[in-house]
């Protein structure tokens, strides 16, 4: 099957000459959830804007469902729903009205039964006659989602749907995303929260400074870059790692009470047994041992640091 969204060598320079996208290529597959992960200013919103028609790429092409977003914008945009990062809503409008407007704008005939279904799914049905300004922040975010879904898009872009949202609502949001995927919607979401990408994405793309650093199946990514840490708690704190242990590249934490050793789980020999022996040879007394699987966060921080070093 051809990709749902095909991004080919997209560059974007803003008026001031700043290059926010430096030749991004990315295929988004039909029916997947792709998390676009990157720090502030990485270019996530810019990339989404280029796909959805909010900004004109300086060069490169984007197509959605086989339609070029510039030359065949009607076909492309009809497939796309966009939930922007900022809460952009008219405060005096009523929920139902604004959702109905969105549907009409995308050329769909009025269908209040469909809108009811969407509002119920987002727990907004009771609020359908409320003014936007009477809603809480989380509800407003859901109104934005309802607006994006009102025309039954096949691809949904969620730009930081859970920024500034409490834990409960974040879980709700994840559930909604999962439901939408069940309904066959392709979903691209941007986030700073690694646990979010970890929790719901099928694939993860890491973007920084306008470059895609990596795109990979989540599970493959986790194993490939999966590092483990052995945390060795000592009876007595030490000032520095003893010289005879220097080869292990350990670091000291918690005022010298914890030695941390990072190792790769994919290696045949991790050397832990030898390390433990050498530690007791050095005269240190162990109190406790813990291991910790590297989270996506560490992978991410590692990747970004690598790019920084390369620059």
């Amino acid at each position: 099957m051809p990709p749902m969204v095909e991004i080919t060598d997209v560059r974007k320079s803003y008026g001031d000459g700043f290059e926010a996208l430096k030749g991004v290529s990315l295929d988004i597959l039909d029916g997947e959830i792709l998390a676009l992960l990157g720090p502030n200013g990485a270019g996530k919103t810019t990339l989404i804007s280029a796909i959805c028609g909010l900004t004109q790429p300086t060069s490169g092409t984007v197509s959605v469902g086989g339609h070029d977003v510039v030359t065949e914008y009607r076909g492309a945009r009809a497939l796309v729903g966009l939930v922007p990062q900022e809460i952009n809503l008219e405060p005096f409008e009523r929920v139902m009205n604004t959702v109905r407007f969105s549907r009409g704008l995308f050329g769909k005939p009025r269908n209040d039964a469909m809108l009811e279904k969407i509002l119920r799914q987002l727990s907004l049905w009771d609020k359908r006659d409320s003014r936007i300004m009477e809603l809480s922040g989380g509800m407003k975010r859901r109104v934005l989602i309802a607006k994006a879904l009102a025309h039954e898009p096949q691809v949904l872009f969620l730009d930081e749907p859970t920024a500034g949202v409490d834990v409960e609502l974040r879980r709700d949001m994840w559930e909604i995303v999962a439901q939408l995927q069940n309904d066959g919607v392709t979903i691209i979401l941007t986030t700073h929260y690694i646990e979010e990408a970890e929790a719901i994405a099928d694939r993860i793309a890491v973007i920084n400074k306008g470059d895609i650093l990596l795109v990979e199946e989540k599970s493959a990514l986790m194993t490939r870059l999966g590092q483990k840490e052995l945390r060795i708690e000592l009876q007595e704190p030490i000032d520095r790692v003893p010289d005879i242990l220097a080869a292990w590249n350990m670091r000291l934490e918690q005022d010298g009470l914890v030695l941390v050793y990072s190792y790769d789980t994919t290696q045949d020999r991790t050397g832990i047994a030898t390390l433990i022996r050498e530690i007791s040879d050095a005269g240190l007394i162990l109190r406790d041992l813990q291991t910790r699987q590297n989270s996506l966060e560490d992978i991410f921080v590692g990747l970004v640091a690598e790019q920084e070093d390369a620059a």
Partner: protein
Amino acid sequence: MNLQAVRAIYVFEMSRFFRTLLQSFVSPVISTSLYFVVFGAAIGSRIEQVEGVSYGAFIVPGLIMLSVMTQAISNASFGIYFPKFIGTIYELLSAPINFLEIVMGYVGAAATKALFIGVVILGTSAMFVDLTIQHPFAMLAFMVLTCLSFALFGFIIGIWAQNFEQLQLIPLLIITPLVFLGGSFYSISMLPPVWQTISFFNPVVYLVSGFRWSFFGLADVPIGLSLLAIAGFTAMCLGIIWLIFKTGWRIRQ
């Protein structure tokens, strides 16, 4: 053509208008009445007749034009400025619509509101003075065309404006003087020759003159010229809007 979208924008914009229908109705009634008290009664009692028409009746076309133009501009400029200001413009930009459809929705709604106010003023005036309209269809056509072309102009201002001050600037600085100096309250022939010549560079003169002709059959400039002026103005506005959307100026970064 995405007519659903045009309809959606139009209905959405009009619903804003209907929410404040009473205001929209009352304020032109009051201001028109004030004009009649000041111009009609105070000044009119000294002038009595202009070119065979009572002064009270003479100013009616100008009064209507004044309101219709400013209303069309302010409604249309606000209509498109507001989504820009509040950020909801993202939806327009990401929707499968072209500039013509966006313009039809916003300008159509703004023109409708202006037309409504024009009709209210006409009705109010009829209570103060005897009005006979010699060419009712031409009158209506002129009013509709003026609503549309000035709404187009307002749309451009709304896209150009980057803050609320700029939104008010053009109407205040350019339109109001042009309208007041455009023969709304006097006949151009009443001016000294130099000022008559200067007046003919004022586009509003052609509109007011044509509109007044549809009422009383008398005009400062030939009616054909008036029609040409309004058609030219409309075409110019459409051209500018087309350029704006083509280049994405002040809309798409």
